């Protein structure tokens, strides 16, 4: 954290040691300053006001850890004649292209795995299959959301910080249609998508002429507006209590329930609640694959090329007769539509929704998935979703740490802290995301991938 002095190859060892010590001391001092009021002191509600507790042990162990860690890093990593960091950089500098080469095979392998996934888990992990399939459903939902947002941010280059609004519109559309008109999932799904797209147009029309960060802040504001309205319009949305009893999806009218007329009964197999999970998994899998296929196709259509051209240079687009407002609106509303589909799936999967589920954090996570994966890259979104969402969920299983730190230690509360840190570290490591090459949409002779340094980021950023 403190300034790193330039390594001198000819520096004497004791010089180096002195410098390293000084640097580590500065870092430790910094940690002391930062940590004093948070690690060293804790305020708690006590009878008669707030009580202070001092935790010198915690503060000084943090300082000591940082001092030792920084010193070791300085001595063995940063200041050696061939710093490990530069070697690391060498190793990873080619990663983009090798990822790209792998991409095709990786995509196929992942696709096959995704198809057989429920059976894989039921077969190999019969005791935990429900948990794993549920996790797979969650990851797949984020993949779909990521792909939907990728159209807006990755292709059209419009920074949308309020994508969760369309997710919410989809979810609430289905929930309300089911509650008030008795719609089933399959009937409500297209309507939910259309409504979300409609909202995309309504919100997009006034704001899409805004540029850059103004667009970002206005989309964020719209996301918040929709959440606040959902929270406060009690008669319509049931406010913070949310809507429960949302119907489960049926398979051609067959319900996944125990007893007469259910899925298991119809096929004459014993009832197992896992059937419903597998079915849900395949629904979101198909929805996600449709999102992906449509996106791939759109990229090769004039509208998709216009999106990418818009990201590269809006003024040039206008000089070529492209109606940029309409082009942006299509990107916005198609992205919103997929968000709406995912939202109504979310509603049917949970059976209960409330405004709690549609906070800015969701938008941030989806955007992080798109950016971490590499803007515009479909496979990147998959990898980032698996890493980020799978990663957070894995952090739930840190129970073993209680053996280390004692019973009072609750590892799950560190989940988001670690998630945030991971976001920062991955971004610092690979600022352009994991997959950084762009594939051309039309080829005359030979397909060449385009390096990220050529590709513009769009005006939204």
């Amino acid at each position: 954290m403190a300034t790193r002095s330039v390594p001198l190859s000819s520096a004497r060892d004791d010089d180096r040691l002195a410098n390293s010590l000084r640097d580590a001391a500065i870092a430790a001092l910094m940690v002391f300053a930062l940590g004093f009021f948070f690690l060293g002191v804790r305020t708690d509600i006590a009878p008669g006001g707030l009580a202070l507790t001092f935790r010198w042990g915690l503060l000084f162990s943090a300082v000591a850890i940082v001092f030792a860690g920084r010193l070791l890093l300085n001595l063995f990593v940063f200041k050696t004649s061939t710093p490990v960091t530069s070697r690391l950089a060498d190793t990873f500098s080619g990663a983009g292209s090798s990822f790209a080469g792998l991409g095709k095979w990786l995509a196929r392998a992942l696709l096959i795995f995704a198809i057989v996934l429920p059976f894989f888990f039921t077969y190999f992990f019969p005791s935990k299959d429900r948990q794993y399939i549920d996790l797979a459903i969650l990851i797949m939902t984020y993949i779909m959301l990521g792909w939907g947002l990728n159209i807006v941010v990755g292709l059209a280059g419009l920074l949308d910080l309020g994508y969760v609004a369309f997710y919410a519109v989809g979810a609430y559309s289905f929930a309300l249609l089911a509650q008030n008109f008795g719609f089933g999932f399959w009937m409500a799904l297209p309507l939910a998508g259309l409504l979300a797209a409609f909202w995309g147009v309504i919100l997009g029309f006034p704001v899409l002429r805004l540029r850059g960060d103004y667009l970002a802040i206005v989309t964020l504001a719209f996301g918040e507006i929709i959440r606040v309205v959902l929270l406060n319009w009690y008669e319509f949305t049931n406010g913070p209590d949310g809507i429960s009893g949302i119907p489960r999806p049926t398979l051609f009218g067959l319900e996944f329930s125990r007893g007469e007329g259910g899925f298991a009964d119809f096929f004459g197999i014993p009832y197992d609640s896992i059937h419903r999970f597998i079915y849900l998994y395949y629904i979101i899998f198909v929805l996600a694959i449709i999102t992906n296929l449509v996106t791939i196709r759109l990229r090769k259509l004039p509208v998709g090329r216009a999106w990418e051209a818009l990201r590269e240079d809006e003024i040039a687009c206008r000089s070529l007769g492209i109606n940029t407002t309409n082009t942006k609106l299509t990107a916005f509303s198609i992205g919103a539509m997929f968000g709406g589909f995912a939202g109504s799936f979310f509603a049917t999967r949970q059976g209960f929704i409330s405004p709690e589920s549609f906070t800015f954090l969701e938008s941030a996570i989806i955007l992080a998935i798109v950016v971490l994966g590499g803007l515009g890259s479909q496979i990147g979104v998959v990898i980032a979703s698996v890493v980020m969402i799978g990663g957070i969920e894995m952090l739930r299983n840190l129970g073993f740490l209680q053996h280390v730190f004692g019973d009072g230690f609750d590892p799950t509360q560190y989940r988001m802290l670690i998630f945030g840190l991971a976001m920062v570290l991955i971004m610092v490591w690979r600022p352009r995301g994991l997959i950084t090459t762009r594939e051309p949409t039309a080829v005359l002779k030979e397909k060449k991938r385009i390096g990220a340094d050529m590709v513009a980021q769009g005006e939204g950023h």
Partner: protein
Amino acid sequence: MLEYFVQQLINGLTLGSIYGLIAIGYTMVYGIIGMINFAHGDIFMVGSFIALATFLILTSVFGFVFLPVVLLIVLIIAMLFTSAWGWTVERFAYRPLRGSFRLAPLITAIGMSIVLQNFVQVTQGARVKPLPPQIQGGVTLMEGSTENGTILVQLSYMQMIIIFTTLVLMAGFTLLISRTSLGRAQRACEQDRKMAALLGVNVDRTISLTFVMGAALAAVAGLMFLLLYGVIDFYIGFLAGVKAFTAAVLGGIGSLPGAMLGGLAIGLIEVFWSAYFTVEYKDVAAFSILAIVLIFLPSGLLGKPEVEKV
């Protein structure tokens, strides 16, 4: 009901001052490196926690009782230590990404925001921290009567302190930016960072100082918030941050007076909306007005209109 209106005006100006102080941090950082520092709202939250802890240490451990001195020390310590946080966030999450892909620092900023919130939650607990009101009383400006009895227009001492401090800080700050070499370096970096570096401006240091100043002002806002509302928790940074950024954009991002004006505007909108319409939709009102202003005045109230370069 003039009295009611005046009372709301005072309340709105107070709240707006706090937003304005936070908004300056956004606007300066945006001006100099063109990024939305999403973690700035959480720096404000960190500032209010530091202020709370310092206050408790001074009163319960050292037994200080003379309130003005206590508050002055709290203010200074909160500014210093919050600045350290601001500096660290920049050094750790933004500097490595300088000059790279413009979306990357936005994502690390969101990441830092998550980190700060959860760090405070983990170390200080998720429950709200109440602090009994420290400064009571005020001046009655007007008195009117309605069917329900008399109505008093009060300007509390707390509100006076907030508005006064904000004015002093704003004045000092404007001087700092317009008169000192630091201010000049900052404006040079805003215009053209590469050229400034070539002319011998230490760009990294200037940017760091910008974050430090922004954080110091956020700490002041944090202390004010703590004293005004008497309740803080780890989540106050998000909404305050979004509102303050809204204020910065409303005023014209990059413009210091704009940030203050935007802050006051957001504060007034919120208070008046709550007073005359519904409390629940005050955020909707603030955000809607932001959207409307931006649609008709795309560079904010005081921002320089951009001529599209063809």
